[in-house]
């Protein structure tokens, strides 16, 4: 039972100090979670602390491998709108 930080992490350090279990550590190429220490904040907080401050959608996964912050949930940009804008930029 542990969350996982994946490669879209931008190394902003925000999650590290808010983890109640000191499970998050700086690593290359991005921060990692010590799965032995991570408690998914159970008994400490109602919500995952790392995922509550992480600014990057999809960068932290729950124990089922699902994005805790799915596309559009933090920026408010609808995913189809983002895809459209990116396709437009690619075509130049």
């Amino acid at each position: 039972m542990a969350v996982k930080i994946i490669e879209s992490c931008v190394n902003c350090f925000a999650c590290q100090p808010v983890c109640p279990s000191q499970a998050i550590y700086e690593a290359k190429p991005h921060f990692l979670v010590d799965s032995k220490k991570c408690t998914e904040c159970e008994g400490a907080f109602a919500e995952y602390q790392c995922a509550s401050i992480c600014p990057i959608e999809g960068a932290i996964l729950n124990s089922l491998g699902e994005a805790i912050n799915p596309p559009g949930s933090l920026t408010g940009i609808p995913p189809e709108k983002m895809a459209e804008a990116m396709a437009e930029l690619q075509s130049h």
Partner: protein
Amino acid sequence: MQLPVLNEAPTKSGCAASSCGSTENQIDVLPDAIREKVQNHPCYSEDAHHYFARMHVAVAPACNIQCHYCNRKYDCANESRPGVVSELLTPDQAVKKTMAVAATIPQMTVLGIAGPGDPLANPERTFETFRRLSEEAPDIKLCVSTNGLALPDAVEELSKHNIDHVTITINCVDPEIGAKIYPWIFWNNRRIKGKKAAKILIEQQQKGLEMLIAKGILVKVNSVMIPGVNDQHLAEVSRVVKSKGAFLHNVMPLIAEAEHGTFYGVMGQRGPTHDELQDLQDACSGDMNMMRHCRQCRADAVGLLGEDRGDEFTLDKIETMEIDYQAAMEKRKVIHQAIQEEMDSKRLAKAANSAAHADEPKLKTRPVLMAVATSGQGVINVHFGHAKEFLIYEASPDGVRFISHRKADQYCGGDSTCGDGESTLQLTIRALAGCEAVLCSKVGYEPWEMLETAGIMPNGEHAMEPIEEAVMAVYKEMAAAGKLQESAQGIRASA
């Protein structure tokens, strides 16, 4: 006739700066104690920004809020926006870099921490840097820029480190508007969204502002102008923050392009035009000192405003530099004194000049915008083709006032293949829309013709002359040639 130099719009009552003898320079209207503190701060004094340099150290990566104009993923070497950096520093590296820059660029007077996240959301890294610099480089002014969420808790600590300047970014005082700018905040161990989040942020910003003022710390307020979101609201923000004691308000234009991947960029929110920004700054200046020379620099910028010498001070380069800071401090002191003397003597000369011409008849001509190419020292000293930015001045019968700066090649310095095929020259000429003359040390043949075609008179006759004097001389030539007779309507070409 000689006209005074203004930095604020003349008031409607007709009290031009010359008649009440009050404002020759924006900071001259400040109380002595504040002026003393800001006279060598390039970000706070329009005058000082021609001479003194600043630097930012990127020690603060974490942020506790999200703004719709920011994207934490973005890092491009060609990008120049707040919140963007190439290299994150530890406090130890930041101290080394600061001392290396201070020794190499003695005009550097100010060290700021401005990100790339929020400095106060990284209290340990931020305060460790400040603590060490106060001890090891006491001749450098320290300042910090914050979104304000964690500010009330940090005021006590800030006051210990001899930080006498704090900038708070306040985009609104109304949660309805805030909800359109801030999608979330992290507060009391939860991510909070919408109006509720904005309300907490606004309360914290205002409380922090009041606490700083109570401690005698100077506060500047930054606001991002977002057309259709907070543009109508910022005059109110200006009134509120001034009434609480902020000494300067800096209204900056929104930077939003789809390629930045920000909410505003992707959703097609536009930034303000040059005219909209200027109108809002003029509207707010009745309430407060406005800052018009801000360059919205990166969180790791180094050098005079408008230049970035960060490449000279990368981590591997500073590792090899041997710095004798005691010796550097001696040298810095001498140079700072010389600059101060030069600034003072220029100010006196200006005052004497305007007094000598005070009783000449006043022109009744319309105001004109002119662009100036300069790399500092307050003189025209850059070749048109080499200018990375232009300073925009308005000349009118009331005098010359600084309006803004405009980037020559917009926000991207990438190669010609990125962009929509317009040449740099075309982009530059477009950036000068609304100006009727451009003053530089030299202008080449090709741009000369293109500028003339665009209705902008190129002028290379005032190389190495003081900016305001040259602008006024050109204005008088235009007046004498009968070019300024038409009414004030329609002179502003839309940008």
